[in-house]
């Protein structure tokens, strides 16, 4: 079971939370301009790295707020939580990433 650091409530057990998938997927600004390929990328394609993953969680049975988490999917090690709208803790991640394995590159696109 994961021990997840909610930015508002501190560390709590995983069953209090709900996973919200990959973080930082931006809604298309001009949806009517998008090609089918761009829609597919936005709707369905996912970065699914074996290594550091930026993901969203909601503290469902707690403060009910959404936040982001940087976590290593190869080890489940939690690198850090950060609030919605904040930038990921890149320097900590960069240090950890050295030990992580292959990660899935995001192409330039609608994100």
């Amino acid at each position, binding site marked *: *079971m*994961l021990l997840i650091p909610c930015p508002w409530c501190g560390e709590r057990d*995983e*069953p209090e939370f*709900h*996973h919200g*998938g*990959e973080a930082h997927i931006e809604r298309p600004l001009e949806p009517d301009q998008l090609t*089918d*390929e761009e*829609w*597919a*990328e936005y*709707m*369905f*394609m*996912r*970065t*699914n*790295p*074996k290594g550091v*993953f930026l*993901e969203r969680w909601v503290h469902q049975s707690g403060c009910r707020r959404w936040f982001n988490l940087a*976590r290593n*999917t*190869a*080890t*489940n090690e939690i690198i850090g939580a950060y609030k919605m709208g904040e930038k990921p803790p890149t320097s900590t991640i960069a240090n950890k990433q050295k030990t992580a*394995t*292959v*990660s*899935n*590159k995001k*192409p330039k696109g609608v994100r």
Partner: protein
Amino acid sequence: MKKYSIFSLARNAFKFHQDWEKAWRSPEPKKNYDAIIVGGGGHGLATAYYLAKEHGITNVAVIEKGWLGGGNTGRNTTIIRSNYLWDESARMYEKSLQLYEGLSQDLNYNIMLSQRGVLNLAHNLQDIRELKRRVNAIKLNGIDSEFLTPEQIKSIVPMINISPSIRYPVLGASIQRRGGVARHDAVAWGYARAADARGVDIIQQCEVTGIIRDGGRVTGVETTRGVINAPKVAIVTAGHSSVLAAMADVRLPISSFPLQAMVTEPVKPILNSVVMSNAVHCYISQSDKGELVLGAGIDGYNSYTQRGSLHIVEEQLAAVCLLFPIFSRLRIMRKWGGIVDTCPDASPIVSKTHVDGLYINGGWGTGGFKGTPASGWTFAHTIARDEPHALNAPFTLDRFTSGSLIDEHGAAAVAH
């Protein structure tokens, strides 16, 4: 390959079983092949077998980073059924079940297919309506399916609790009598032996670390045992589909989650069919060794750790004890996890990619063991002809651009 038979068994018994020939060779990898299959699970080995058998392509290597079937093939709860809702899935999984029905003969290897019937339980009125609708849809596709009352369920599964006063009462079930279980290792080993006999090189302890391309074409793979060339490379690495695809800059709609299963201490025969429930989430059967085989739900977050959280196991065991109070006395012997690659529509991908000569088969999620034969059969066709077979044409990557998803999420009576 020496044929297994009652006579070879007797002959070898006299020699104290010291004389069996190896089931497959373990050759050094060659420099060049006509096709490389990455991943030595059931799906990869079936692909190699049907490439050789159906398409005469035998200069093939199966490259496995660990040992054969050490991924999800050897970790799954082996439920086989073809009672899917949508036509595309029904055709695919029914083809698979039909191939399973002849597989022991075809491979000359006993895969211990046991068509003991698979029941899916209903716990409320909506479940009943949904299951009845499903039973009818499945029948329209020519696949066997029936609806059972609680009393009929009880006559098949005497140990089940059909008291109307429990928290999630058993109000009915659908049954596919041709459904059942098979021996997972035997499926991998049987395909491996038969593929090897047709000339396929099976290379274990060899990890693919890169996919080599020249322009838009694939030319081979980098491995921990050096570069191996082939004009066709097929990725069949459940649990690592995204990792392998990323090596060739192919984007997939896949997320990877842990899925757990466990077995109890062995007991005498007590459960002679497979019982599954979506609502309380449990699926249970008894192995030939006597262990009860129990499967849990997936953990809710992406992970490659092959282990899951304990509260998932707790939920699943609560469901088992609700339906079978007598099983609360059993002890769990082993528990493990596998990594399942899931697509947004809970249907698999058996497809070409935008890289010429690169093929991908993955996203079978929590239910691909039953799909093993048809997966290999259609994937072999896709690789040999460079175009999908009619059965897997709806299951290509294009569906995520065209929007014609095969939405089995919730449509599969249960997930496995």
